[in-house]
């Protein structure tokens, strides 16, 4: 019996992904700025889905308030740019701010039980939204633009933003990937499967969860930064909206909770739906909500999770495979 991490499929696939990333770098050089802006939106969705999945799928933490960090990223950028930093430096600073703020929040948030955590995070987002509304310098309730970006020619601006989005997405996905492959990752899977059993084996559950929480905060902050860079204008009602949580929940539940590839698929799906039904308004939201509820009840592993289970397929080498060569049939168990 052998324990393997890579299979031929996952080797091919990972090489393919690396190639894809290289190709994507060329996108702004080849495609129109409108298309580039749309693809930037897609990358934002991928990032958000991956981060929400990191929290809920790997940490068992259901947050309906990640928009708090999106807002910190977006308004942080405007704030730092207003202080005189160059826009792109302000973006990095805002991302760091989002992650930093999550640390004191985590001290009490992680002790809360499911519903209190979910709604507690939502209330924190609401509080931040209210604070922003009171600040004239941040545009109060009517919103504000990142005018400092006007110094760049639109084509360049869109390109830089796209590359930043690509960079962030690759960075955070890679961070999550290596986190899951490390011994830390195995303990995270254990926590997800049975928290009490994991704790009794010495897994430091609290520290692991904190790591995921802070990572997700960084990632959502980065997404917020990208939102303001991509759309230029932000207002508290949209940036701190619980709608973001609705999107994240849809992407991850439909794509596949707790799988690495699932959220990416969910993001692509949501992106496709959004671009098709551009002004679908309430109807497409009804569909989103119904789909999320139906998947939660009937298909909890999501599309990718079900496919993975049926076909025994694993594209990204995140888990382990036990290959039994004795009886020749190559029977495999995957985690």
């Amino acid at each position, binding site marked *: 019996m052998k324990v393997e991490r890579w299979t031929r499929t996952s080797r091919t696939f990972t090489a393919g992904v690396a190639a894809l990333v290289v190709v994507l770098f060329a996108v702004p050089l080849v495609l129109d700025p409108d298309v580039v802006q749309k693809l930037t939106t897609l990358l934002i969705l991928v990032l958000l889905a991956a981060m929400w999945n990191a929290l809920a799928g790997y940490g068992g933490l259901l947050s309906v308030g990640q928009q708090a960090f999106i807002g910190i990223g977006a308004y942080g950028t405007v704030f730092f740019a207003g202080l005189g930093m160059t826009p792109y430096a302000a973006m990095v600073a805002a991302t760091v701010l989002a992650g930093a703020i999550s640390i004191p929040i985590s*001290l009490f948030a992680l002790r*809360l039980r499911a519903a209190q955590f979910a709604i507690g995070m939502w209330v924190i987002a609401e509080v931040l939204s209210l604070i922003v509304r009171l600040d004239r310098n941040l545009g109060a309730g009517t919103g504000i633009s990142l005018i400092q970006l006007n110094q760049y020619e639109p084509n360049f601006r869109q390109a830089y933003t796209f590359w930043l989005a690509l960079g962030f997405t690759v960075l955070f996905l890679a961070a999550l990937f290596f986190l899951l492959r490390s011994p830390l990752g195995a303990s995270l899977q254990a926590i997800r499967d049975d928290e009490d059993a994991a704790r009794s084996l010495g897994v430091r559950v609290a520290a692991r969860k904190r790591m995921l929480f802070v990572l997700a905060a960084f990632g959502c902050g980065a997404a917020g930064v990208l939102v303001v860079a991509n759309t230029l204008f932000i207002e508290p009602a949209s940036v701190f909206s619980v709608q973001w949580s609705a999107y994240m929940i849809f992407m991850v539940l439909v794509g596949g909770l707790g799988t690495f590839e699932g959220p990416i698929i969910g993001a692509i799906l949501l992106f496709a739906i959004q671009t098709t039904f551009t002004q679908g308004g309430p109807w497409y939201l009804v569909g989103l909500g119904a789909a999320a509820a139906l998947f939660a009840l009937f298909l909890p592993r999501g599309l990718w999770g079900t496919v993975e289970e049926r076909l025994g397929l694993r594209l990204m080498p995140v888990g382990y495979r036990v290959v039994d060569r004795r009886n020749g049939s190559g029977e495999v168990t995957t985690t």
Partner: protein
Amino acid sequence: MTIVNALLQGVFLGAFYAVLACGLSLMFGVMRIINLAHGDLAVLGAYIAFVVVDRTGASALVAFIVALPVMVVFGYVLQLTVLERSLKAGLLTPLLATFGLSIVIQNLLQIVFSPDVHSLGGSAGSLTTSSWQVTGGLSVSALGVVVLVVAVLVFSALQLFLSNTRAGWRMRATAEDADAAELVGIDSRGVYARATALAVAIAALGGLFLAIRSVFDPVSGPTQLIFAFEAVVIGGMGSLWGTLLGGIALGVAQTLGAQVHPQFSVMAGHLLFLAVLVVRFGGARFSLRFAR
């Protein structure tokens, strides 16, 4: 005088929040579920009453009496379809499923009724506007008193039901140990359905009060949910009378907050909620043990 006025308004506002929160608290007490669509169900009740008033010109009270059985049936259906299934699945499933449901309800309401804002203040007769002047600067609104009285009645009735009737004992028994309850002949499915129907009916009452005291639109639900949940947490999860007190505490926090700055009222409630969470659950071990 203004502080006393604010306190009084806070109590009245809090009674409204308590009614909103009552159903949420009941469902949590019996089934350990937090229904994230609770606020939207209250708003749905308001819309049904609104339709009755719009079509027939009846008073708000009559409209509510018509809306009530509809909501009760809806509650039964909700339990037997969505909630029952999610009870058996993991811890997160009820939250996810009810969140999805919340979005569905909000947007269906928007499709049927347009995003316009409505109110039933006009159909409640003089209730909405009348008040009594008491000793100079103190003004006691009739609506406020009615909501407070109704809140106390609803909570008392619920308490009497749970302590003095067989159906109430069965609900408590099922809440404490559903498995043992089944073994003793209690149909736990039926108990849960009844609890949900009751919770939804009381939510509809909350929706009616919302419609009378202010305005509502299809997306008012989440705000009501947050206030209801805050009331439940402040008063202590799992305690029925705690929810009434929690609602009043929330109301008072908001009205006192408004005294500090008009835009500070909702924030004051949020801060009270977060403070309660930190104190109750933040724990004594507040150290930054990050590197462990």
